Each structure stands twice: as structure tokens, then as C-alpha cells.
């Protein structure tokens, strides 16, 4: 591999990793703070993409569709928390898996009813539609760089909210001691509702900003769900920092796994088995640290 190609692949890996972070950060947040496992998380990534498509179509402007989509996602999140999720806080994780598995089916079919089963697309907004030439025949879309910037911004914002604000303090306290927080007169119900809505909105936001470079299609959430799980397991449950590092790690491993050739004893390993690389990485890390890179010790 030429050095310039290597650098571009590095960029590809980081860019993919950052997008992964955006999707999985909501999952780890909801996990870490509420102890809720939401396996329908990927479905809301899909909902975000469809929202971007339908709202851009209705409003005619991606930049207006984005905030509108965020508002709708927050409302969906709060509604869901109020309707179903809040009954699960004192129940075993098992019921959370069961319920959110049911939600996957419900969301997928509602998508079919509301938006149909066709493949859709969203245009890249004009202002970001340029490309930066990298080599004589390859260029890098500005929009992808913008996605990375948004992901970094969200990462920074999450860090600031959790570490520096009163809401963050309540969130952190709620994570460690639910009863104490309640005795201080803080309404933990409200905190949880906000956190769940935020987690869902992060997934939807990822779907929305990915929509112009991706396409919008049925079942697209299932693609990202499992890899989000891997991110959270590697990074450590509830750790936003861990999710960021794990995402970047996976982005790089996945990218290079597809282009590096590797054979062990005449048996071609890469790129033939590239879809397994991230799982092997996960197994290795678990063997070393069962709680993930930045998880609390078990």
C-alpha cells in the first residue's frame, strides 16, 4: 500500500468510527445512566433517516428538516419513555430486551405503513456538496468531513453536559444512587425521560445526517445495531469516552480489515473474513478486560 493510500484509508477509518460513535453514544448513555438495554436503538437510526427524507421533501430544506427532525425525535423518545420504558426500571434486563425486540417489529412495520418500502435518497445540501481532491482521481466529499465535525461536536457537548452542568450532575448521581437523588427532591422520572429521549435522538440524528451520503432504506437500522453493541461492549458500558475510543478502533479495524491481505499457513484470512475482525477484536479485549476498556470494574 502506498503511503498516500494508507493515509486516505486512515481518514476513512476515522470518519466511519466517528459516525459509529454518534449512533452508539445514545445506546451507551441510556445503558449507563438508566440501566436500560434498548435493542431497538438501530430502528431509530432508520427512523432518523426516514425523517430526514420526508421532512426535507416536505419543507424543501435540509437545514430546516434537521431541527424539525430533532424535535420530533425528542417527542417520540419522551412518549415512548412515558408509554412503555418507565415500567421497566425495576424489572430484569430480560424484559427490556423482550420489549424493545417487540419495538423493532413495530417500528419497522410502521415505517412500511407510513413511508412505504422503497429506497429513498436525500440530496447533500448545496453548501456542503463540494469535494476536496486528494489524489489525481479521488476526492473527499466535504459533507463527510462535516459529519465527522458534527460527531466530534456531539462528543464534546456530551462530555460538557455530563461533567459540567447541573443536569449532568443529576444524571451522574442518578446513575450511582437513585434513592439518594430522589430524597434530595430531584425528580428522577424527569431526568430519565430526558436521558431516554436524548439517547433516542442521538440515534435519529445519526440517521438524519447520514441520510445524504447513505441511502434511506428498510432494515437499515439492523446493519448498525449489532456493531453498536460491539462498540459499547468494547468501550465499557455507560462510558462515553469508551464509546468514542471503541468506535475509532472499530472504524480502523473494519477499514483495514477490508483492504489488507493476510494469509496464515496458506489459508486466506483477510480480507476474506473481514466481517469477523471486529468480533475478534471484541473477544480479545474481553479476555483482557471483561468490563470493557473504560467500564466500571465488575
Amino acid at each position, binding site marked *: 500500500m502506498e503511503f498516500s493510500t494508507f493515509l486516505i484509508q486512515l481518514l*476513512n477509518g476515522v470518519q466511519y468510527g466517528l459516525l459509529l460513535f454518534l449512533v452508539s453514544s445514545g445506546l451507551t448513555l441510556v445503558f449507563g445512566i438508566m440501566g436500560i438495554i434498548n435493542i431497538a436503538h438501530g430502528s431509530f437510526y432508520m427512523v432518523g433517516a426516514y425523517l430526514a427524507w420526508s421532512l426535507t421533501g416536505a419543507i424543501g430544506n435540509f437545514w430546516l428538516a434537521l431541527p424539525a427532525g430533532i424535535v420530533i425525535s425528542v417527542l417520540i423518545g419522551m412518549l415512548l419513555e412515558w408509554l412503555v420504558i418507565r415500567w421497566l426500571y425495576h424489572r430484569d434486563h430480560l424484559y427490556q430486551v423482550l420489549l424493545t425486540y417487540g419495538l423493532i417489529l413495530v417500528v419497522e412495520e410502521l415505517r412500511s405503513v407510513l413511508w412505504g418500502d422503497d429506497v429513498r435518497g436525500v440530496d447533500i445540501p448545496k453548501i456542503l456538496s463540494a469535494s476536496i481532491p486528494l489524489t489525481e482521481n479521488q476526492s473527499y466529499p466535504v459533507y463527510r468531513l462535516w459529519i465527522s465535525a458534527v460527531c466530534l461536536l456531539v462528543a464534546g457537548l456530551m462530555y460538557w453536559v455530563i461533567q459540567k452542568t447541573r443536569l449532568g450532575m443529576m444524571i451522574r448521581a442518578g446513575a450511582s444512587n437513585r434513592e439518594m437523588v430522589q430524597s434530595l427532591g430531584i425528580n428522577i422520572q424527569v431526568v430519565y425521560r430526558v436521558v431516554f429521549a436524548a439517547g433516542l435522538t442521538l440515534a435519529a440524528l445519526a440517521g438524519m445526517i447520514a441520510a445524504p451520503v447513505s441511502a434511506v432504506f428498510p432494515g437499515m437500522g439492523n*446493519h448498525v445495531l449489532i456493531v453498536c453493541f460491539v462498540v459499547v461492549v468494547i468501550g465499557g458500558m455507560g462510558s462515553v469516552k469508551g464509546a468514542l475510543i471503541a468506535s475509532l478502533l472499530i472504524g480502523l479495524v473494519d477499514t483495514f480489515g477490508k483492504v489488507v491481505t493476510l494469509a496464515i499457513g496458506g489459508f486466506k484470512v483477510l*480480507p476474506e473474513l473481514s*466481517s469477523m475482525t471486529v468480533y475478534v477484536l471484541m473477544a480479545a479485549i474481553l479476555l483482557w478486560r471483561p468490563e470493557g476498556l473504560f467500564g466500571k470494574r465488575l
Partner: protein
Amino acid sequence: MGDNGSEKRPELSRRGFLKAGAAVAGVAGIPAIARAQGAKMKIGLMLPYTGAFAAPGIAIENGFRLALQEAGGKFAGRDIEFIKIDDESEPSKATDNINRLVTRDKVDLVLGTVHSGVAAGMIRVTKESGVLHIIPNAGFGPATGALCAPNIFRTSFSNWQSGFAMGVVMSKRPAVKNVVTIAWRYAAGEEFVKGFKDAYLKGGGKVTKELWLPFPNVEFQALLTEIAAIKPDAAYAFFAGGGAAKFVKDYNQAGLSKSVPLVGPGFLTEGVLDAVGGAAEGVETTLHYGDGLETPKNKAFRLGYAKTFKLQPDVYAVAGYDSGLLLEAGLKAVKGDFGRKADLIKAMENAKIDSPRGPMRLSKAHNPIHDHYLRKVVGNENRVAGIAVKALDDDPAMMAACKM
């Protein structure tokens, strides 16, 4: 929806449900379903009605119903009854689902399906039981190769065929000396690439590198960078549905479409042009059909379909429609008596179908022999630029594997 033929749902049939429930408790027996003489012909539609392939599934059913409607609601005087089952494009449920149609509902013909893995499961059962089976999409080679059977027909295509057609086109272009292929690493992807290579290598071309992506992964960036580094004269790509839309967009945004022309089988640009905006402009594909085919038959078909279903037909609808024509041709020869199975099969084998795609007949292995067109994306249309290969038959290796 066209209101042709009565429709009976298999699964609720509330009585059937209760019966099954009663039998669980071991209380009641299940009376055999009696079939009256001269009854309606029962057609099982085993198609995806939910999930990623729901749109093609519905188009196929619509196409079939259009053929029935044009025939006056009956094929050769025979009434048709439909029994629908959602295969969910889920191979692990395929055997179960087809068993329901064949052994419980005792259908006379099965139409299905889109997903090759599911179709393979269906074939296993239809081959054993001998029930008539028309495959209206799934393009995997063995269906009309090693798995072929007298009662199994395909009205769509084989993956190899459309790959081969593009190989022929590319080998005739002196400027295209080396090509990179990129596809999902699964059976269909491998068949498209094999078809392409069979023609292109024979024509003197060179495939510099084969790039593969795990199915259904859609992270293309790493491989696009590879293509840029290799600088081939063209890239042959196979992806479908949402993956195809994303690939075409990514390819364009990486700036590759300017230096490395993108070509592929028709599915690369089928049903995704609205989704990709202008990103597919100039992409060339080969397929046995094109929306803008300027034949009277195609125009009439498109008009009829649009009128009946308030939708534009696509290549999937064509296969559904042709499945109807094929069955009609068979039933006409036996005057509607579908009990005369051997004669019916013979008539279907020899049928010459006047399809919207052009003339079509079946090979000995029951795969379509049809023209393949070269299409070029202009605006929102796969414009037909000419015939790539006339009356193209299937992969000789597959045909040799078919013993019947």
C-alpha cells in the same frame, strides 16, 4: 388492486387457526381438506410482503394479477384462487412456509420468490413433491442448474446472464483493457462477477483485482480508495436495493465517476434512481429489461399496469406478468385441465412468450432465453442504448449440471 380471482388467506381462516389450537391440546382431529373435481386452480404466492424486499414482492403479485386480468380473470377458462404467504425473505423459515402451501393448503402451483436463499429452500420441497413452481425473481444459478426439475420454471433471469452481457459489452471496447470488480461476497455477487469474467476474459480483457465486501455491509469507502489507487479503465459493481443506492452515491462523491466509468448488472440502478439524485448519471448496466423499451407490447403493459395499480411497473412486475403469461400458455394447451401435468409442463416448456421485455422462451433447464439490453442512466431513467447480447442463454456450466 386488481380484483382478479378470489383470495383466500391460509392462516386465518379462523377455523384453521382454532383447529390447529385444538390439535395442540390433542382434542380434535384435523379433517382432510376435500378438493372438489373441476375446482379452481390454487396458486400459492410465497413472496416477501414485509422487510427489505417488500416492494419487489408486491410488484410481482401485481404483475401476475395484471396478466390474469387481461386474460379475463381466468386462464383458459380456469378460475384461480390465491393463497398468500409472507416469506419475510427469511431463509430459516423457507421450508416451513413452503410446506404450509404444499402439504397443507395443497396448492397446484407456487409463485416465489425474490430472495435466492428462500427460493433454494422452496425448490427443495417443490422438487420432491412435484408441485408446479415458477420463480419470478431469484437469480441464483443452481435453480436452473443442479437443482433443476421438470416442474420448476424461472421467468426472471439468472445472475450469470446479466453479468455475462456486460462482459461482452466491455470486451468490445478497446479502451477498456483492465477492470476492477466489486461486489458483496455472497452467492449472487459471485455469480454476477463470474458471468462478467466469463465473457470479458474470453474477449481479451483483464480483471486487475476483485474486491469483495461482506454482505450486507455498506461501508464502501475503504474499497473505493482501493479502486482509486489501482486506476482501472472501468469498475464492474454489483449491489442491490439500499446498498446499490449508497454505493452509487459514494462512488460519485469520491470523484471516481469522472475517471473510472462505473458499470454493472441492471440491479445496480434499478429502483434507486430517484434515491441517488444525479449520482448515477452515465452509469451503464445490462439487463433483460428497460423501462423505456420502445415496443408496442411494453407500452401496452406499462399503460395497463399504471392504470390498474396507480404505480409504475418495474423489472419485478415484468417477471410477475410473464409468470402469468407462461401459466396461461400452459393451461391453454391442456384446455384448462391442470390435472394433465405432463402436458401442461410440456406446453410451458415450449411456450413462446411475448413479454414486455421482448420475445422470451425457456431453455431446457427452464431458464429464460432472452435479449439483454445495454442501458445508460440519463436523468431519472435507465435508457436502453441497444441490445448487448441477443437471445442469451444461461451459463454452460449450470446447464450441464441440470439433469432432467
